[in-house]
């Protein structure tokens, strides 16, 4: 009940971390736990490489999802888009097209779907949820048509090397995922486009009245997300040496979960790339660690849900309702 004016304490980074870092703490706790359980295995080079390899594609899709969620939208079709792009590239190469143009077309497919979503959401004012749900449905149908429901394989070695080759004993997709994450982080942080996206996500009307072209901004976020998820899908095809309509479909929910986990990492509760990568890491560490401990996969699934809840609750976040 003192009335002395205590000067407002500048929060230290560590204090901030402890207050907001519930999700990060959850990640560390998981790492410590699995390390304690299997010190001989968990943090070995091979296993860390394993984890990185396993999450690399998810990290790319989650990066794409982050962009859309930064502008306050939502894209349910990303995983489907990545399957379609991967399938299209596989199908074209099997049809005799050289690798480079096939990949180019695969990327264009992703970009076009992204632009389609962007037009529906930003220009026709459809809710992102319905629009991308509908796109997802159609895109999965297209992927089935492209693959005729089968798994396309026998892809050129040069192509498979993209997903399976190694540099310094680390698989290429890991480098590609890191590179994409760094680029997206820099785009969000340092470019005018990224700034505009954050502004639009913060308040559409304020952004518009500040001279930002809101529609174009949202369109661009969707387009970029479509393009990036095409990269993920093509990499996944190269990584598995095959393309199919359903390949990577679990990336849908996991990418969204990763972004949401990541939103709890920073105070303002916005989607952000570093947070998303923490979310991806939680998902990857959890699945690898539980596998290593030999936990039954049904139990794993139950535990996964509980850990997500624990992480988010720990972060004590007062998320605004979306």
């Amino acid at each position, binding site marked *: *009940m003192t*009335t002395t*004016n*205590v000067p*407002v*304490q*500048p929060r230290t980074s560590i204090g901030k971390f402890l207050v907001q870092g519930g999700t990060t703490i959850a990640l560390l706790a998981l790492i410590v736990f699995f390390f304690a359980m299997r010190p001989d295995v968990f943090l070995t080079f091979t296993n860390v490489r394993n984890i990185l390899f396993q999450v690399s594609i998810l990290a790319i899709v989650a990066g794409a999802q982050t962009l859309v969620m930064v502008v306050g939208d939502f894209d349910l079709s990303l995983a489907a888009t990545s399957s379609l792009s991967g399938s299209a590239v596989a199908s074209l190469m099997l049809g005799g097209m050289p690798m480079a143009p096939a990949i180019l077309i695969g990327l264009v497919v992703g970009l076009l779907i992204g632009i389609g979503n962007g037009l529906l959401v930003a220009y026709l004012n459809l809710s992102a949820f319905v629009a991308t749900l509908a796109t997802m449905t159609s895109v999965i149908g297209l992927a089935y048509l492209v693959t005729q429901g089968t798994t396309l394989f026998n892809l050129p070695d040069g192509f498979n090397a993209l997903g399976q080759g190694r540099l310094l004993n680390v698989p290429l997709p890991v480098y590609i995922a890191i590179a994409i994450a760094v680029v997206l982080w820099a785009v969000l942080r*340092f*470019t*005018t*486009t*990224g*700034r*505009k996206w*954050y*502004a639009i996500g*913060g*308040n559409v*009307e*304020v*952004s*518009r*009245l*500040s*001279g*930002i*072209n809101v529609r174009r901004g949202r369109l661009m976020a969707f387009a970029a997300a479509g393009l990036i998820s095409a990269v993920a899908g093509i990499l996944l095809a190269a990584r598995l040496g095959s393309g199919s309509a359903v390949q990577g479909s679990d990336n849908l929910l996991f990418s969204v979960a990763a972004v949401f986990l990541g939103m709890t990492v920073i105070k*303002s*509760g*916005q989607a952000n790339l570093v947070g998303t990568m923490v979310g991806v890491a939680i998902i990857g560490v959890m699945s690898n660690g539980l596998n290593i401990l030999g936990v039954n996969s049904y139990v794993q699934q139950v535990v996964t849900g509980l850990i997500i809840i624990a992480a988010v609750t720990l972060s004590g976040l007062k998320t605004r309702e979306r």
Partner: protein
Amino acid sequence: MSTTSPAPTTTAVPAFEAHDIVKHFDGVHALSGAHLSVREGEIHALLGENGAGKSTMVKVLTGIYAPDGGRILRNGEEVTFANVRVANRAGIVALYQELSIIPSISVAENIMLGERTPSRGGLVQWAALRSRAKEQLDRLNQKIPLKMLAGDLSPVQQTMVAFARALANDARVLILDEPTASLTDTEIKDLFTVLRSLRAQGVAIVYVSHRLEEVFELCDRLTIMRNGETMLTKDVADSNIDEVISTMVGRAAGDLYPDRGTATSTVALSVTGLDGRKVKDVTFTAHKGEVLGIGGLAGSGRSELLRILAGAQKHTAGTIAVGDVALPSSPGVARALDAGIALVPEERRSQGVILSASIRDNIALANIGAVSSAGLVSGGRISDITKRGMSDLQVKARSSRQPVGELSGGNQQKVVLAKMLARNPKVLLMDEPTRGIDVGTKAEIYRLIRALAATGTTVIAVSSELPELIGMSDRILIMHEGQISGEAMSAEADEEMLLAYCYGKTA
């Protein structure tokens, strides 16, 4: 400063009191020893600068915030309110400052919201609900269709609906936090009539406002807060505006309005035959260095006019030219800004600033071109313009990285201004620039407007307060139903004449 003056002794026990209230937010001392004591049958003004703690006090009094210290007494007995419902049941009802309506449900339901909904066995009694809602609207002299979605109402009507809801609670203690901020004279009159009749029925009313004229017209006693503390409580009759202002700001009051300047004869903005939603055939010019005030009744199209000029709204006919450069037919905000027209919008929380973003980021928003090169944003340049803006406008904040949502209303408004001033606009449009801002900050904003004009900027400011319109402008245009119904040099204008224009009596 003295604390409380002895209260005139008419009733024994005050209806509602709060003593030594303390409330912190994250290290901010919103309240540090505040008092308030209201009697039955009085209208008690609660005054103070922006950020003095008035709204926080209101929320502590009604159970929204649990105080960190202090006592609340109802009819002399100590009470604690766990939430709004408990307070409401004790007869204490508030109309909160930011409280508005629920746009997606009907007017009638908005008025009879929550526990007021008449029901039997869990079923809503629709007929009773509508008739009671209508009673409240009738008291306020409002004819609003009961089945309409509240979101389709004009902002003024929405406020009246929110007010009807507060009335519907049959409060014994009614707390109103800036109820008139977005109303015009007609509604304010109706509101006052109701408040006076409630007073006659013995209701204790707390009235928070920045419009001091209203306070002296309506209220019986006043309490003044500063920095979370109660500085003074006394009878309105024993006080005067100068004392109130000096107690609020902690120093002697200067002149509210700075001296007028001299406008040049260079035309800075010319508008011809502008038609658009709510705007009909508007033609006028504004000069370099001029402060042009625009007045009118609510819904007369003033905001729409500014939005069209700023490129935020399309127009269907007419031309806009800055200097002698004509704008394209649908410029968009970005082009208008590039041409030198900047808008400080009406609703600062939903249109002016991103509440969750920092001061820097908000200021950078309208200046992305200036703070970036080759598509890359320079943090240094953002810091530069932020620093300049914050010091020019004397924004009070912990740091430039503080979220704007944590600032008081006046400081939020300064951030909006800083954001737009960094564009060095030739024409600055300001829609209700002092709405919800305390007198001290108001005076600062008037001085700022004048200083801008002195450097050659044209300022066009919409205001619903006629004294303000006269005090801050060089020249005044009045709008009526989308058209300009009158024009006057403010040196020659008086309120009566402007009011006549407002009601469409053309000169």
